[in-house]
C-alpha cells in the first residue's frame, strides 16, 4: 500500500522473456484483478494441526512493488502461512487470493503466477541443476528459445554456472539454495514467495540475492521470510512480525524502528578514562531520563534516553554536543539512534509477559 500501487499502472509483465502461453495467462491476471489491487490478498487465515493453532487469523496484502518481510521466532507460523499461500496446505479457515485467483478453487491459475522457494529449498537430489531447471521450464510451459533464455538468465542471476552438471545432492547447502532460487524466478512470475532465501548463503551471495530481489521488486509482489534483521532494512518495504501464529507488528522498517526503546536515543562514545566524570555530567543533561553505559576496553559508549521515549528530540544531541565542547572531550562517535530492530523483535515476541502487556493496551 505504501508502495503507491498506482505508480505501476497495469505495467503488466511486459518485462518478460516468457513463453507466449505464460504471457497470455499473465495478461489474464492483470485484467482479471483491478490493476491497482494487491497481488496477494490474505484474509483471516487460520491453520490448525489437531488442537494446535499454527496460524491464527492472519490477514495482509501485498501490492506490486512491495517487498514484505516475514519475521518471527522459530515455529511462529511463517512457513505454514507460505505453504497455504502457495496451495501446498489447505487452510482451516480464511481465504487467499493471488493475482485475483482464489488459491483453493483456482489453484493452477494462482500457481502459474507464483514463484515459490520452499523452506530448505527441496529439489530432486539425483538431478543436475541443468536437468532440474529444464524440468521446471517444461512444467511452466516454456519451450525452445523461451525456455533456454529463461534458464540462462536464472542461472546467471544465481551464479550457478560452475555446478550445472553436478547432481544436486552433492551440492553444498548454499548452492542448493541457489538452485531453489533459480527455480522460483525462472518464469519471471508476478508474485514471488521465498522462505528464507538467504539462509546458508555466503556474504557475497547474500548481497547478490538482496540486489536481485531489489532489482525485481519494482515489477513484482514479493514475500520473504528471514531471521536476519538487517535484511529487513536492506530490502523490505514492509515488515510483518508474527508470533505464535498471530501478527504482532505490521509496518515499514521505519515504523518498526520507531517502536524501539532506542529510537532517537543519543549515543556517545568516549575514552574510558573520561567515563566516570562523563557519567555524572551526561545524566544531568537537560531532557535525559536514563543513561546506559557499555564499557568496551578503551572506549565507553553511553546511550542517553529522552524523557519521552521515542519522541523526536533533536535538542538532546545539541545539548550533548555543547557539553562536549565545554569540557573539551575527545569524542569517538556521537549519533542519534534510529532504533534497534532486534530489540523491538525481542520485546514483541518474547513470551506471554510482553504479549499480555501489549494486548490490553491495544484494546483500550
Amino acid at each position, binding site marked *: 500500500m505504501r508502495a503507491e500501487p498506482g505508480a505501476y499502472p497495469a505495467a503488466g509483465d511486459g518485462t518478460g522473456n516468457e513463453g507466449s502461453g505464460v504471457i497470455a495467462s499473465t495478461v489474464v491476471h492483470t485484467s482479471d484483478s483491478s490493476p491497482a489491487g494487491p497481488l496477494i490478498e490474505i484474509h483471516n487465515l487460520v*491453520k490448525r494441526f489437531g488442537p494446535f493453532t499454527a496460524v491464527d487469523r492472519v490477514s495482509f496484502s501485498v501490492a506490486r512493488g512491495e517487498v514484505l518481510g516475514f519475521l518471527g521466532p522459530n515455529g511462529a507460523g511463517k512457513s505454514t502461512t507460505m505453504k497455504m499461500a502457495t496451495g501446498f496446505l489447505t487452510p482451516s479457515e480464511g481465504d487467499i487470493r493471488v493475482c485475483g485467483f482464489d488459491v483453493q478453487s483456482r489453484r*493452477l491459475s494462482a*500457481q502459474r503466477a507464483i514463484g515459490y522457494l*520452499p523452506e530448505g529449498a*527441496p529439489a*530432486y537430489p*539425483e538431478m543436475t541443476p541443468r536437468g532440474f531447471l529444464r*524440468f521446471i521450464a517444461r512444467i511452466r510451459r516454456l519451450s525452445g528459445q523461451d525456455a533456454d533464455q529463461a534458464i540462462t538468465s536464472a542461472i546467471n542471476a544465481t551464479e550457478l554456472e560452475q555446478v550445472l552438471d553436478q547432481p544436486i545432492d552433492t551440492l553444498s547447502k548454499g548452492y542448493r539454495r541457489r538452485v531453489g532460487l533459480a527455480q522460483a524466478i525462472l518464469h519471471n512470475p508476478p508474485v514471488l514467495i521465498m522462505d528464507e532465501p538467504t539462509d546458508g548463503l555466503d556474504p557475497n551471495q547474500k548481497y547478490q540475492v538482496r540486489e536481485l530481489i531489489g532489482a525485481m521488486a519494482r515489477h513484482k509482489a514479493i514475500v520473504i521470510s528471514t531471521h536476519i534483521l538487517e535484511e529487513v532494512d536492506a530490502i523490505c518495504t514492509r515488515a510483518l512480525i508474527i508470533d505464535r501464529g498471530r501478527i504482532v507488528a505490521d509496518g515499514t522498517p521505519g515504523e518498526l524502528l520507531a517502536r524501539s526503546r532506542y529510537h532517537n536515543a543519543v549515543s556517545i562514545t568516549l575514552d574510558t578514562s573520561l567515563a566516570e566524570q562523563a557519567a555524572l555530567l551526561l545524566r544531568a543533561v537537560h531532557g535525559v531520563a536514563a543513561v546506559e553505559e557499555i564499557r568496551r576496553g578503551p572506549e565507553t559508549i553511553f546511550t542517553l534516553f529522552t524523557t519521552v521515549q521515542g519522541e523526536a528530540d533533536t535538542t538532546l544531541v545539541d545539548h550533548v554536543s555543547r557539553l562536549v565542547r565545554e569540557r573539551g572531550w575527545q569524542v569517538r562517535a556521537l549519533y542519534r539512534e534510529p532504533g534497534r530492530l532486534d530489540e523491538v523483535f525481542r520485546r514483541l515476541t518474547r513470551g506471554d509477559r510482553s504479549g499480555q502487556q501489549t494486548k490490553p493496551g491495544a484494546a483500550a
Partner: protein
Amino acid sequence: MNEMLAVFRRELGGYFATPLAFVFIVIFLFAMGSFTFYLGGYFESGNADLSIFFNFHPWLYLFLIPAISMRLWAEERRTGSIELLLTLPVPLWAAVLGKFLAAWVFAGLALALTFPMWLTVNYLGSPDNGVILAGYTGSFLMAGGYLAIGAALSAATKNQVIAFVLSVVVCFLFTVSGLPLVIDFVSGWAPQALVNTIASFSFLNRFQSIVNGVIDLRDLIYFISLIGVWLAACAIIVDMKKAG
C-alpha cells in the same frame, strides 16, 4: 498433458540417474531366470512354451513391484520435493498419472528384457507366439495393477519401508483371493455373492486365463479399472494430506 509428460519424463529419468534401475533390472532378470529354469524345471518339462515362466510372474511381482512403487510418493515426502511438485501448476491427476506411467514403463522395460526367453523357446521348438504375446500383455497389465496399489500406499506414508510392506500385503491379498484355500475359507460363512466377488478380484485366475492364450475383454477391463480405482485413491490420499 504437457505437465503430465514433464512429470513422466522426470520420473523415468530419475530411475536411470541412480544405480537403482540397473540393480533392479539385474535382480528382476536373475529372479525370472532362476525361477523358471531351476525351480520350474523348465528343461525337464520338455514344453516349448513359456507358461512355466509366466506362472512365476505373480509371485515375483509381489516383491519386485512394491520395490519400484514404494518410492513413488514416499520419497518425495521424505526429501520435501513434494512441496515443490504440488506448488507447481501441475494438475493432481497429471502428477499421479505421470509418476505411475513412468513406473509402469520402467517395469515394462524390465519385462521386455526377458526377451532371450522368447528367443530360446523359438530356438528349441515352435511355440505359439500369439499365446506368448498374450502372456506378456497379461503380465504387463498385472504389473500395472500391482504398481497402482503400491502408488496409493506410497502416498500414504513418508517411510518407504512401510510403503513396501503395506504394498506386499495388499498385493498378496489381491493375488490369492481366488485360490481354493481362500475361497474355501470364506465360503464357510460368507454368502455366495461375496465369495464370487472375492474370487473375481483375484489377479491369479485372470492372469492364468490370459497366459493360456484367452484374452477376455472382461479381464482387460478388470485390470484397467483396477488401475484406475487405485490411482484415484492415490490422488485422493495426496489431496487429503494437504489438510495437514
